[in-house]
């Protein structure tokens, strides 16, 4: 693959490089006999630099810098629903995984008035969906100061901060932003944003209250990098980069440039998560989808119509699934339609894709059925069968565990055509008549119609 892996690009210093920076006293206070031994352990990340009482501040910052992750992990909000963004190491999810799903936020603007803002705060908290065993939700509320009154704005920030979701304070007037931050500093809001015009004041506010700060409003990536550098020198540690708006093509270019610079070139000023702020049009909705796929850590939107929100959240769930760990559904006996004790029973595995496909095919028949989902640790029928995770024993156990015979008196189970070989053994173990179904579940409607006919 042309994209180098994290290990290849991560320039962790060697033991000799570390040794040069150590005091070379061989005092033994780190519990290791020599500074060289300590350096070797450090290079392997077995000990912490803290163990050395004599290391100089310069050496300390140099070592911490080179050992830091390519993109800083930034947290905002507090409690169970605090948002974590950044700490990504890849350009392509297949090289390892993307770690922190894009945080979606709903913007409540003070031009709409305090009541509308309250309604939006409620709406953001209400937008929750369960999908394949995970809760998908809007992750934050952004309160924006535009043409409304500053008092309404601060009031809305207070109301939002009293709820669970992390808050973004959107205000470029540092004095007003300070009031809002004052009202909820313990809830660790994200400050939006420092621009070339207010960088000094916003950096001071962020530093003073130890809050993360969005850097944006620049006309080029070069300027953005200079601002990030300046904010860092002013003492801001947690930053989020907003590379600016424009066409979706521009957004893709900017976000790709920042991710590459951070991960491949280890360009420090871009070693932070990213954000984009969108409007309410259909093209903004598609840009949000782009942000999810292509490196935007935070996407703030003016409206989140549910027809769009649900697919967008499903997309996010898909893209941020760890390629090594398949999404699983809970094993168990599922009713498709309204089955009775006479309805047919079939089984499949708990790999979510397999389950969904089989279920959809059963639904196409418009006939009710029981679907027994056997735990195969998320593997598909053929993979699980080959790996010994789908066996007559495991199916018989699932039949037993789910008390199938109490719920169904048909005394028959339909098995996937691909595993017809387990028929005899399964019959022996379960006592049920075993019927071999189609090799592909697309054949199920036909089979079910013939059963009922």
């Amino acid at each position: 693959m042309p994209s180098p892996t994290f290990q290849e690009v991560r320039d962790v210093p060697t033991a000799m490089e570390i040794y040069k920076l150590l005091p070379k006293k061989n005092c033994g206070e780190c519990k290791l006999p020599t500074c060289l031994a300590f350096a070797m352990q450090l290079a392997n990340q077995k000990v912490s630099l803290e163990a050395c009482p004599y290391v100089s501040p310069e050496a300390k910052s140099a070592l911490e810098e080179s050992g830091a992750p390519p993109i800083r992990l930034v947290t905002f909000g507090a409690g169970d629903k605090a948002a974590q963004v950044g700490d990504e190491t890849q350009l392509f999810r297949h090289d390892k995984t993307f770690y922190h799903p894009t945080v979606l936020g709903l913007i409540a603007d003070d031009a709409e008035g305090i009541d509308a803002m309250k309604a939006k705060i409620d709406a953001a908290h209400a937008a929750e969906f369960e999908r394949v065993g995970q809760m998908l939700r809007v992750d934050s509320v952004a309160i924006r100061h535009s043409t409304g009154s500053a008092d309404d704005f601060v009031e809305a920030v207070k109301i939002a901060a009293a709820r669970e979701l992390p808050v973004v304070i959107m205000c470029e007037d540092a004095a007003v932003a300070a009031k809002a931050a004052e009202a909820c500093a313990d809830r660790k809001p994200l400050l939006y944003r420092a621009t070339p015009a207010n960088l000094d004041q916003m950096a001071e506010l962020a530093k003073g209250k130890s809050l993360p700060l969005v850097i944006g409003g620049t006309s080029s990536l070069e300027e953005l990098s200079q601002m990030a550098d300046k904010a860092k020198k002013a003492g801001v540690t947690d930053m989020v980069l907003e590379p600016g708006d424009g066409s979706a093509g521009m957004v893709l270019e900017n976000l790709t440039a920042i991710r590459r610079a951070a991960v491949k070139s280890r360009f420090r000023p871009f070693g932070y998560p990213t954000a984009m702020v969108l409007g309410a049009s259909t093209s903004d909705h598609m840009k949000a989808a782009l942000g999810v796929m292509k490196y935007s850590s935070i996407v703030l939107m003016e409206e989140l119509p549910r027809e769009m929100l649900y697919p967008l959240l499903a997309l996010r769930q898909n893209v941020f699934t760890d390629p090594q760990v398949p999404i699983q559904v809970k094993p168990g006996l599922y009713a498709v339609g309204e089955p009775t004790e006479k309805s047919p029973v079939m089984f499949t595995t708990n790999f979510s894709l397999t389950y969904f496909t089989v279920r959809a095919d059963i639904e196409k028949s418009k006939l009710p059925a029981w679907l027994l989902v056997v735990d195969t640790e998320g593997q598909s029928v053929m993979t699980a069968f080959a790996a010994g995770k789908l066996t007559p024993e495991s199916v018989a156990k699932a039949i037993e565990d789910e008390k199938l015979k109490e719920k169904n008196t048909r005394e028959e189970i339909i098995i996937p055509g691909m595993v017809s070989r387990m028929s005899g053994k399964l019959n022996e173990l379960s006592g049920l008549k075993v019927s071999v179904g189609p090799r592909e579940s697309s054949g199920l409607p036909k089979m079910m119609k013939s059963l009922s006919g």
Partner: protein
Amino acid sequence: LGFELPKEKYGGRIKEVAIGATKEQGGTRSRRLVAGGSNGLAFHSFESESPHKPLVVMDVVDTVRMVPERLQESMGSAVNDPVEWARKCEGEWGADACVLKLQSANPEEEDRSAEELESLTKKVLESVGLPLLVYGCGFEEKDAKVIEAVSNAAKGERLFLGLAEEKAYKSIAAASMANGHGVVAFSNLDINLAKQMNILLLDFGMKPENIIMDPLMAALGMGLEYSYSNIERLRLGALSGDPVLQMPMICDCSCAWNVPEATEENPDRGQAELRGIYWEAMTAYAAVVAGADIVIMRHPRAVGMFRDAVADLSGGA
């Protein structure tokens, strides 16, 4: 500490494949489309060139049995008549091409004969000027007859015939080679299988410029992440110089309408029809962002949404 945009240069380039033939080129199509040609990742215009925009091929299915109910309601009566449906695609809906899916050949369902389907294909060709892809029903023996008849009847039109699969490709490949058509090479979500499929077709004597790859697009919520990464890997493999992976990719996103959660009534998730439209548009969008050159789509509003988004990605409308 100045910032320099990190650019990637790849050694490989996607082959340009032409679909459809005009009068001068020996056919009767009103236009010839070209897919592929890019030497970089999708929409990375800051470091590569992509001479051709992604193409939108619209679905035309010859039996309403295979059209989900939600879509029938939403798309109107044209779905009952493939000729009318194709006309709509060309006129009102602005498709670049159509794919005529001859599902009624299914020997376990309508079982329409090769002759009937040949005459249907002719009728569609007479009724619209769009370049055409023609797919069989997926039953090997039947498809061999149907595709051969279609191929003969459309000599010179430069159709793309499908789907060639690892266990059933010879008859389709032969039918395409006999009359100057191309082939859609299907593989099941795996970079090695995609490569293997192309090798089989090349060994059989097909020219690379007559092959389009279909690496299986799983819809949003139905394994999209597998397809997304598979397409990215295929594209990176092609760009890094593997000639057997340099065919353009086609992704059939019509599967979005078969996803229950995309179209079921559930007011908590918004209005069902519009949700379905977003579902398809986002599926297709993910396909091209990952690297697809051609998408197959169904709903005219999803097509509109997709086209606007692609124009935006290509640097403005």
